């Protein structure tokens, strides 16, 4: 037994006798990725859960200081890898704020559609795998079937199904085509039926409800003080959504509700995620029919954004423009300032704190990962729960190790 536990004042001698330590992870099916918990158990009751993280710390932020604003998008992709494009959008949102670039309406709409597709993408995996861990494999299969459709939509737009690297400073890699629009329309049309099936399999499943209700409760005060955001905070009654409160991209144009709950338990968190999927579909539905025409790259002095590919191949000016946008000494100069900008990623507030030093790369690219702050609340959520609840709580806060450790 560790010393600090022996010295803990809220344990009496009798309790200390029967405690035992259980090591959970780093290689455990329910962690999905790599994280470790040291559990102090009294019988089956969890007295203390001490997370040990860093098993996937790969130096993302150090790479952010080496690569330029366009190159680093390939690295942020790999941060929250169950919704890759949400990271790209967050990163370039922050970069564009630093550089003072205003996006074109078409680019804003396409990014919004992708951001919402990624929200569905993320929530499907979160729910599917948590149900898998709690013993039901069917919902997982349904979730992955829908995810494959979203992968195809990503692949059609960017050429890569997983790590798309689709956004660029001030624009997008390619413009979308009509058949992409048709794919998204089909997805929006088919999704409600799948949602009904999925919802019936998960949220009305008695075993699932029994195992998640009143488990891992997080109060509103703890959520605010601990820095919880996104579905975890909204399930605890903190009605805050950056899409509504600090509108970015094209969210001002759409009509949607912020989903929240008062419960604060695992079931509430899953409920919020389920409801958010429907709201996302609502946003995509409004956006896909109204994509404005026009260029995808922001107009400006020309240096801040990449030129259109057709221009590069067909005109000498376009080619020069392209070379200038990748040459370190001819690139756009970022102001010597710092900026913090956040977007509402599926997991919560994904923010970037960027310090510019007068070149086209970040002097410091800090990520504010929602997973890190949520996982630091884990031991608080676990207090008084049973050993088998660890899996349910871990699934409900949706910890992504690469984002957690960076």
């Amino acid at each position, binding site marked *: 037994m560790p010393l600090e536990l022996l010295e803990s004042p809220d344990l009496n001698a009798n309790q200390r006798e029967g405690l035992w330590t259980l090591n959970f992870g780093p290689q455990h099916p329910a962690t999905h990725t*790599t994280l470790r918990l040291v559990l102090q158990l009294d019988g089956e009751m969890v007295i203390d859960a001490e997370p040990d993280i860093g*098993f*996937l710390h*790969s130096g993302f932020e150090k*790479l952010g200081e080496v690569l330029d604003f366009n190159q680093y998008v390939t690295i942020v992709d*790999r941060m929250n890898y169950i919704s890759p494009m949400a990271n790209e959008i967050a990163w370039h949102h922050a970069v564009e704020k630093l550089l003072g670039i205003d996006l074109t309406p078409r680019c804003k709409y396409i990014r919004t559609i992708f951001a919402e597709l990624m929200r569905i993408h993320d929530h499907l995996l979160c729910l599917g795998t948590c149900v898998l861990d709690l013993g039901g494999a069917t919902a997982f299969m349904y979730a*992955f079937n829908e995810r494959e459709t979203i992968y195809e939509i990503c692949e059609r737009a960017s050429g890569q199904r997983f790590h798309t690297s689709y956004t660029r400073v001030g624009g997008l890699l390619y413009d979308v085509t009509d058949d992409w629009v048709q794919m998204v329309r089909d997805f929006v049309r088919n999704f409600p039926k799948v949602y009904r099936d999925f919802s019936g399999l998960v949220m009305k499943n008695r075993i699932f409800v029994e195992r998640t209700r009143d488990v891992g409760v997080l109060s509103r005060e703890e959520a605010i003080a601990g820095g919880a955001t996104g579905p975890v905070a909204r399930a605890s009654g903190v009605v805050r959504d950056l899409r509504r409160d600090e509108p970015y991209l094209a969210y001002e144009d759409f009509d949607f509700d912020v989903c929240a709950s008062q419960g604060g338990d695992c079931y509430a968190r899953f409920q919020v995620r389920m409801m958010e999927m429907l709201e996302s579909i609502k946003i995509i539905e409004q956006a896909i029919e109204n994509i404005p025409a026009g260029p995808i790259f922001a107009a400006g002095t020309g240096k801040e954004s990449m030129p259109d590919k057709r221009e590069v191949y067909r005109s000498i000016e376009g080619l020069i423009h392209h070379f200038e946008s990748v040459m370190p000494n001819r690139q756009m100069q970022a102001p010597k300032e710092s900026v913090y900008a956040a977007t509402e990623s599926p997991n919560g507030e994904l923010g970037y704190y960027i310090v510019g030093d007068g070149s086209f790369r970040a002097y410091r690219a800090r990520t504010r990962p929602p997973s890190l702050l949520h996982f630091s609340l884990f031991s608080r959520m676990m207090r008084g729960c049973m050993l088998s609840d660890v899996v349910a709580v871990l699934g409900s806060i949706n910890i992504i190790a690469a984002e957690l450790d960076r």
Partner: protein
Amino acid sequence: MATQINKQLGDNVFLTTLDAAASWGRANSLWPMPFATACCGIELMSTAASKHDLSRFGSEVMRFSPRQCDLMIVAGRVVMKMLPVLQRIWLQMPEPKWCISMGACACSGGVFDTYAVVQGIDRFMPVDVYIPGCPPRPEQLIRGIIDLQEKIQKGGTINAREFKLRILPEGPPRFDEDELIRIRERNGFKLDDPTYDPVH
């Protein structure tokens, strides 16, 4: 004589070496241990899920305990805090065992040429099949598993001959050739008996 047997038995009996039969069994009933650390783990899930059904290729029985597995799929980058864990899990797996290094990060470190990421797991442990891609598509993983099955079919033997040089057996004790003979003798088989046929 041979034609007579053929007439009686038809295609119900075939003769082969025990090695080939054992290898065939091993190759088609791989039990993978998904050592999924990062993005590739999601593609590994995707491979096992509804659209790309891995069970079509006889290796869908994912077991998370290394003691029950014979194929380790290292999916994702391995960093210096994780490498000792990986090595320990590899040592805990019983023989015969194989390893697939899935994705650019596990093969070479990929885009993460940083202080924390191990530049290829093959620097510190044996790897049988490398799958490129960041992350590889599910089809690529399936191709990798088929390649490994071919390799097992060619190389695996009942006495794990390819692993003869091992000096630190961590798994269960090796199957002894002499033990096999003793078991057969106990069961009434005599190796020098001209009527003895290993297939029956």
